[in-house]
């Protein structure tokens, strides 16, 4: 069943349109990738889904037309967005960041359980639970950002450049946790990534953007078999 569908979606900052009519679908329990070079419109596409930019076309989530919804309304429907640059709340403790992630939930016991679940998934955070988020390393902040999204118990996670600025081994750690999240909870994802190898370790299918338009689309294996993908993203 289709969970998220983009139909001919455009997105602009002010009068500058940066995404020119792209379409794709994400099923339940599905993980889709958006690949492409810097400035291709990957982040903007996620922002369009979350209602952070001016959006045209049609975005449907679980049967509801969410085009132009405010970010908090989109979140309330079950979409958790891990933004580019992590968006952790620097002045708040790790625990408070996690509690903010669970803002829309009323089940106190469940929230406490999920905090434990996040700390199991990211053991580094357990030792830093009372530290301010701004005191964490880049990798720990990324883990916190993902954990905060998990706290919302979302049906879909939008993950934006989770490897950006991280040491390769740290990026591997982060993606290991993401794969675990996929296999244990089956939450659907849209993964934006410049590092195609990391993306392909999670996603089932992907679209490749080039200056705001779709240049390629296909399953992971299809894309991995294409020469242009291998040349552009996998180093030959």
């Amino acid at each position, binding site marked *: 069943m289709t969970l998220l569908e983009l139909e001919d979606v455009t997105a602009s900052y002010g009068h500058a349109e940066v995404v020119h009519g792209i379409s794709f679908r994400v099923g339940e329990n599905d993980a889709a990738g958006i690949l492409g070079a810097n400035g291709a419109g990957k982040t903007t596409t996620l922002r369009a889904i979350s209602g952070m930019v001016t959006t045209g076309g049609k975005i449907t989530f679980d049967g509801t037309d969410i085009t132009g919804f405010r970010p908090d309304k989109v*979140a309330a429907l079950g979409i958790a967005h891990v933004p580019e640059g992590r968006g*952790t709340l620097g002045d*708040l403790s790790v625990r408070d960041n996690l509690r*903010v992630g669970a*803002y829309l939930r009323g089940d106190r016991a469940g929230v406490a359980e999920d905090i434990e679940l996040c700390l199991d998934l990211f053991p580094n955070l357990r030792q830093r639970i009372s530290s301010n988020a701004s005191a964490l390393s880049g990798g720990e902040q990324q883990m916190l950002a993902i954990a905060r999204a998990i706290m919302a118990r979302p049906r879909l996670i939008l993950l934006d450049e989770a490897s950006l600025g991280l040491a390769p081994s740290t990026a591997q750690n982060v993606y290991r946790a993401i794969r675990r999240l996929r296999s244990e909870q089956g939450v659907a994802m849209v993964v934006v990534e410049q590092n195609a190898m990391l993306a392909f370790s999670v996603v089932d299918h992907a679209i490749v953007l080039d200056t705001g338009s779709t240049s390629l689309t296909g399953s992971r294996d299809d894309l991995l078999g294409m020469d242009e993908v291998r040349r552009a993203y996998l180093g030959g």
Partner: protein
Amino acid sequence: MDREITYFIQLVIEGLSTGSIYAALALAIVLVNRATGIINFAQGGMAVLSTFVAYALVVRLNLPLGVAILGAVVFAFVLGAAIERVIVRPFERGDPDTAVVVTIGLFVLIGGIAAFFFGYEPRQFPSFFGTITINLGGVFVSLRSLGTIVVLVVVVGLLQLLFRGTKLGLAMRAVADNPQSASLSGLPVSRLLMIGWGLASVLGVVAGVLVAPQLFVSPGMLDFVLVYALAAAILGGLDSPLGAVVAAWFIGVVENLAGAYIDFIGNDLKIAVPFLVMIIILIVRPQGLFGRKVVVRV
């Protein structure tokens, strides 16, 4: 006890009491600044208008003082929330300098509205604490001074409870930290900002009601308190509530001591002393006593 020492203690308590009034308004300024990055020069004017409401309820409608103050608190909250929603919101995401000019305009406008309804003639306002003086082991202090300090301490405690102990407080801290990111977790940012402005406005009316019995109610009654409160907020670090309170107490005490002990200063010049100290402190610590240096990481 030595008379010199009891006199000194009296001066300090009086100073803390005046400082508590500055602190209430300084807290309002810090709250708004943390949430929206704006320094609200209209904070004093909003407090005066709300204090006039308390005056009208108690003097014109003959309501009990407690009820009148409660009414003024409700009015202040609605006024603050409405000003954020209608006037300030379009400027929140823009240039902070523009927003400051808007709040200065508001300051003038609200003063005018207060004058239009109530005139410029200062009006008496009853005190919650009467004119009783207490003898604490030889130190004579007015109940008003002690009461003012206690009210501020209670207000600070309640704020602490709100921000550290409730979901609403957590959400307000999150929005102050990063509104866009907070909205991605489903926080209704604009509603929380409205509540923040409403709360700040309530802090202002606390200052207004505390100072009204001494200064009388008039459109300009809080003008100099606003100057001190701004000084306290900046000295404390602009984003630190604790810093604002400590700085406000410091200003109140230094002002009082300087007026009493340094002969050539006296009552007229005493207001200059805390500002002189403030300038010196800010030269050494530009981020204020409790503020953090803003470090931009690449």
